[in-house]
């Protein structure tokens, strides 16, 4: 049971981006269009699951003093090998993910999860955690890029990742002249992220408040039961 809880934790309660503040660098930089969001999150999920598995496989033999250099070398080698294989054997996939894979090495989620989770749990749990965190990351990135793309260009569109000219769906929601181009620049990224992070915080405060009320109600109940 706690495996399932661990897995879903990554979605909202422990969302890597909004509550752990990991990987903000890439979230802010990449979340300009839906295509970028999908491309980046798929790349992150693949690398995160693989690196979590390798790191948890060698966790018992890694001496603690050189833990960080060893993890970073594994992640960097993994990223570069995936990038080479994709550019050589899947040129179509390369057009979709080619620009995002080198960005991953600079992404703090991978090392963050490697050190916090993969170095303490077995391979299957780490892979699961990688997947959960990756999906949480994709969820955050999709929400961010939908808002920013909508406000910056007034159009929500998604092109076929393998052939960028072919548009799968395109809906114009805001007419062209009411578009706020600030949201495609860094400034918009900060504001969108701030509001979404506040939303998650409000949701968590709400949960805590409800939990506290329940506790108070139970305590009152118990006291009443004792007196009777």
């Amino acid at each position, binding site marked *: 049971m706690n495996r399932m809880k661990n897995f879903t934790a990554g979605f909202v309660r*422990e969302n890597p981006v909004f*509550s*752990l*503040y*990991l990987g903000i660098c890439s979230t802010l930089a990449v979340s300009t269009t839906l295509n970028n969001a999908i491309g980046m999150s798929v790349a992150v999920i693949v690398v995160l699951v693989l690196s979590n598995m390798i790191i948890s496989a060698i966790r018992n033999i890694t001496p603690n*003093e*050189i833990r960080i*250099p060893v993890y970073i070398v594994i992640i960097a080698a993994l990223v570069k090998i995936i990038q080479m294989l994709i550019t050589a054997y899947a040129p179509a996939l390369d057009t979709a993910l080619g620009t995002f894979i080198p960005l991953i090495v600079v992404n703090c989620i991978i090392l*963050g999860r490697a050190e*916090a989770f993969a170095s303490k749990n077995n391979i299957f749990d780490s892979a699961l955690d990688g997947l959960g965190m990756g999906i949480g990351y994709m969820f955050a990135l999709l929400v961010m890029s939908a808002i920013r793309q909508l406000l910056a260009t007034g159009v929500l569109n998604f092109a076929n990742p393998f052939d960028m000219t072919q548009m799968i769906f395109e809906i114009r929601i805001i007419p062209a002249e009411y578009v706020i181009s600030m949201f495609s620049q860094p400034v918009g990224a900060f504001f969108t992220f701030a509001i979404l992070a506040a939303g998650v915080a409000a949701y968590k405060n709400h949960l805590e408040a409800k939990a506290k009320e329940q506790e108070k109600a139970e305590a009152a109940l118990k006291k009443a039961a004792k007196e009777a």
Partner: protein
Amino acid sequence: MVTTIIVMIILGAVLGLGLGVADKFLKVEVDERVEKVTAMLPNYNCGGCGYAGCSGLAEALVNGEVASVSLCKPSKPEVKTAIAEYLNTTPGPDGTCCKVKP
């Protein structure tokens, strides 16, 4: 292929040696409770608690600068209670225990 492996072996060895020697000669007697608590904390080094990294928070907890573990937002509740219990029970080098709330 072979040159890369040789270059990497030399680089890895040199850095490993450097870290090993540094670790041996630069050993600072750290209160082992701090290391124990750092290991129990999630190690995101996210800085959410205002300290730079989990070792900073662990030190603050051990020398009483901070009274409750709840400052570390991402850690799970059962981890917080475990840390509090550990600190309230194990005496430090001067024999005193600290009073910390989860």
